[in-house]
């Protein structure tokens, strides 16, 4: 099970990147299975956002790359799940309505956000190792920023 993830510890938090998925710099993961892709937010995104209280889906249908296809709300902010590529959303994870904390508990599994079908090229996606490097820099930078602001 431990080899399923690339992992780094920043302060007391172990941040994980699941192997075999693709990623965006907007902290979205993509699991392609045939024509359909399942997407969600990464461990880093859920950790930085905090405890998720609500998840909202505006609509099914078409979204452009970078367009928010869902939002999740924590006590800190309302944050976007940005579409990784031009796509058609086929389904959202209904389980998140009752238990939005599934994203915090299992961001790569039960906390998935949407099933989509690409309507344009899936370009610029990062490999797991590429995203891992990106994630480490971002996490360490954020830790330095928060320590300066006195936040936990």
């Amino acid at each position: 099970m431990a080899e399923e993830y690339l992992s780094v510890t920043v302060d007391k938090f172990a941040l994980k990147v699941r192997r075999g998925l693709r990623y965006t710099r907007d902290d979205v993961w993509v699991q392609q299975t045939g024509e359909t892709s399942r997407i969600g937010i990464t461990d880093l995104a859920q950790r930085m956002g905090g405890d998720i209280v609500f998840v909202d889906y505006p609509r099914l249908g078409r979204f452009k790359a970078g367009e928010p296809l869902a939002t999740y709300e924590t006590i800190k902010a309302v944050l976007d799940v940005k579409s990784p590529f031009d796509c058609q959303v086929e389904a959202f994870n209904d389980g998140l309505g009752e238990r939005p904390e599934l994203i915090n508990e299992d961001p790569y599994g039960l906390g998935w956000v949407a099933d989509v079908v690409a309507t344009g090229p899936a370009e610029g996606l990062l490999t797991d190792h590429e995203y891992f490097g990106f994630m480490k820099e971002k996490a360490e930078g954020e830790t330095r920023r928060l320590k300066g602001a006195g936040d936990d």
Partner: protein
Amino acid sequence: MKLRPKVGVVSCSGECCGLGTLSRVATRLILEGVRPETVTLCLPLFLAGDSGEREFAQRFPTIPVDGCHKQCAKKAIEKYSGPTAADVDVEALLNKWGVEAPADRRVLDKADVELAERVAEEIAKRIDWVQGGWDA
């Protein structure tokens, strides 16, 4: 060049009396401004959480801030992680200073908040001592 190691702080946050509230507030003041580079660990997570708290306290110097002589934070760190780097016993500090613990465990008045700031300074002294610096 001096390297300052990361330091964890664990407050008892005990609910039984004002001493727990004082410990909690003093620890929060450390995090919020007095020494913002410290990492605050949640005591209940030592037992109920994943291993993050326990592993941090194993790897980095960690200071318990205990409200009273029962020293729950110190005992938890020693039980689940290892020896503590330095200790703060708030009850002992108050006895030394000749001051009373807060009467209300929910709401601290102005004098209680000033007392928490004083305790925070004591925590800061221990953090500075632990972080005395390693010559690179």
